[in-house]
């Protein structure tokens, strides 16, 4: 178990971040294709969860958010962003957009017998878990960097 935790905190995250970027890029394409987002139409027609969606953004806004996420991750492969930017725009933003999608998608599905959870939700939830992993790693790296700064300041004084 200890070996597993160490591996989670030390493995190179580049492949995972590349996969998440690819995933967000595909999500943009799927949305442009006119995906029934969260199957919102089904939900509203069924009259089950229509009110849940009043505060959600429009599809265009989601596309812009995903596009920003893709561009930020892609740029981070070539440019060294500071840890706070990585934590906010790579980790937290990813969790917000994926968490919103996955959570609300499941809310729509549960309790609606004519519209069961699709098997592909497993892939979506996995990406959501990976996004949390990326966030924790950014937080972890940020803490290590702060610790290094504190140590170097201590040495100076």
């Amino acid at each position, binding site marked *: 178990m200890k070996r*597993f935790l160490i*591996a989670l905190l030390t*493995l*190179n*995250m*580049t*492949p*995972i971040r590349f*996969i998440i970027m*690819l*995933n*967000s890029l*595909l*999500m943009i*394409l*799927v*949305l442009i*294709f*006119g*995906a*029934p*987002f*969260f*199957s919102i139409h089904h939900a509203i027609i069924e009259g089950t969860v229509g009110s849940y969606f009043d505060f959600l953004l429009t599809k265009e806004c989601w596309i812009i958010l995903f596009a920003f996420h893709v561009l930020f991750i892609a740029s981070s492969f070539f440019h060294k962003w500071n840890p706070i930017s990585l934590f906010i725009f790579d980790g937290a933003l990813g969790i917000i957009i994926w968490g919103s*999608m*996955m959570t609300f*998608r499941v809310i729509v599905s549960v309790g609606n*017998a004519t519209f*069961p*959870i*699709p*098997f*592909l*939700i*497993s*892939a*979506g*939830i*996995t*990406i959501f*878990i*990976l996004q949390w*992993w990326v966030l924790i790693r950014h937080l972890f790296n940020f803490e290590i960097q702060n610790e290094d700064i504190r140590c170097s300041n201590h040495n100076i004084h």
Partner: protein
Amino acid sequence: MKILDAAIITFIKTDITPIRFMIGLSSLLWAAFSLLPGTLFKVKEVCANLFNNPDILNWFIFSEALWASLFFFHSIVIFTSLFTGKYDRFTLFADGVIGSFIWFFSVSLCILSHITIWAEFQPPAVLAAGITITLAQWWNLIMQWEKFPIAQKD
């Protein structure tokens, strides 16, 4: 071309342990979700869309329980391989080949089940995640092949 070569080398040399962990988790969740009630895998819709006959391919496309068993087996193989560090002919076949087959086939069927008329093609939003996992699985197969090439097997 230098950029392309560099990209290919990066892909081949990258440690894909996190990717394999992700695929294993996805397969495990796939198997778990099949325990929930409702039609998860729209086999009949696919057949109806493709052949105007819901029953014609039932002999070919397995039952949901068998699909769930295949995905569960796939996840077990991946996690066992990850924890033991074992790579051999069996993992190449069970993880790489079978994994690529089940992910590619299930996601393709999902796409097909949503195509009735091309102009009205509306894939579900979560399809993006399924395609990503399938591409990652193909990457996994290529990497396994690199580690355990045909010449080495013989």
